[in-house]
């Protein structure tokens, strides 16, 4: 039961966060059944806490990260790699902030961007293994979330903590 519930929470959070994040950058993405286009660039960020540890990755073609780049219409390869890393960083940050409502505080690593041909993720046998794919006018993108969860830990929403995190883009003045 706890495994099913944890997977359901992560699945919902991942789906909501990636669609909203891409929308913030002007990319309307719709879910499709994975796998989609073979990935040429993957950005991976690790995370850890007492209860859950694992990795989040986003994977797409080079063209996807090039065409969605926010700083140049003709970015250099270095700019494309940095953008892929930043996008995965912001996606995990967004999920992390939503998980505060479940009394889970993750510590994040820094992104690692890998390039190659036809990159894919293997099927995980234990823990959470969420794989989602999205189509947009800029191409397709996949998100992979894998985690090991401490035995007995269940992601349950703490209603009193729901509004703890600040919304993306909002400015909080002290």
């Amino acid at each position, binding site marked *: 039961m706890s495994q099913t519930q944890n997977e359901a929470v992560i699945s919902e959070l991942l789906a909501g966060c990636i669609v909203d994040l891409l929308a913030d950058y002007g990319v309307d993405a719709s879910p499709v059944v994975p796998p989609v286009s073979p990935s040429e660039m993957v950005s991976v960020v690790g995370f850890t806490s007492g209860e859950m540890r694992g990795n989040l990755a986003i994977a797409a073609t080079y063209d996807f990260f090039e065409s969605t780049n926010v*700083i140049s219409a003709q970015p250099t390869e270095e700019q494309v790699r940095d953008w892929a890393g930043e996008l995965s960083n912001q996606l995990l940050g967004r999920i992390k902030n939503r998980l505060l409502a479940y009394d889970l*505080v993750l510590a994040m690593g820094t992104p690692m961007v890998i390039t190659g041909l036809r990159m894919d993720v293997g099927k995980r046998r234990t823990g959470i293994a969420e794989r989602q794919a999205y189509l947009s006018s800029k191409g397709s993108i996949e998100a992979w979330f894998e985690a090991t969860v401490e035995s007995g830990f269940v992601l349950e929403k703490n209603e009193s903590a729901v509004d703890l*995190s600040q919304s993306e883009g909002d400015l909080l003045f002290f």
Partner: protein
Amino acid sequence: MSKKVLVVDDSATVRQQVRLALAQSGFDVVEAVDGVDGQDKISSTPDIKMVICDVNMPRMNGIDMIEAVHATGRHAGLPIVMLTTEGQPALIQRAKAAGAKGWIVKPFKADLLVAAVQKLTA
């Protein structure tokens, strides 16, 4: 003469996004790649009017950087706004206690960022 704003972030994409937003409003942007570099730039660039700073960075994080900068006393009045993926209340409170003036969770809205910079550098 343009007012100088320091942006401290390990992502070149974010530094460039901030540069583009502020340059359009007449600000001059100086960049630093982490907290150590940020501290050096603040020390070596006396006319910096404001700092926009990430939290999670290699070598020195943004909150440690604020604490170190304000601890010297020389830059106690330098306004600093955090621009980060973090939204954890404990971190926000720590930044506030260290002397930060504001907090924005990425991605930022250019108009809000520019308004904040205009207000804090006025």
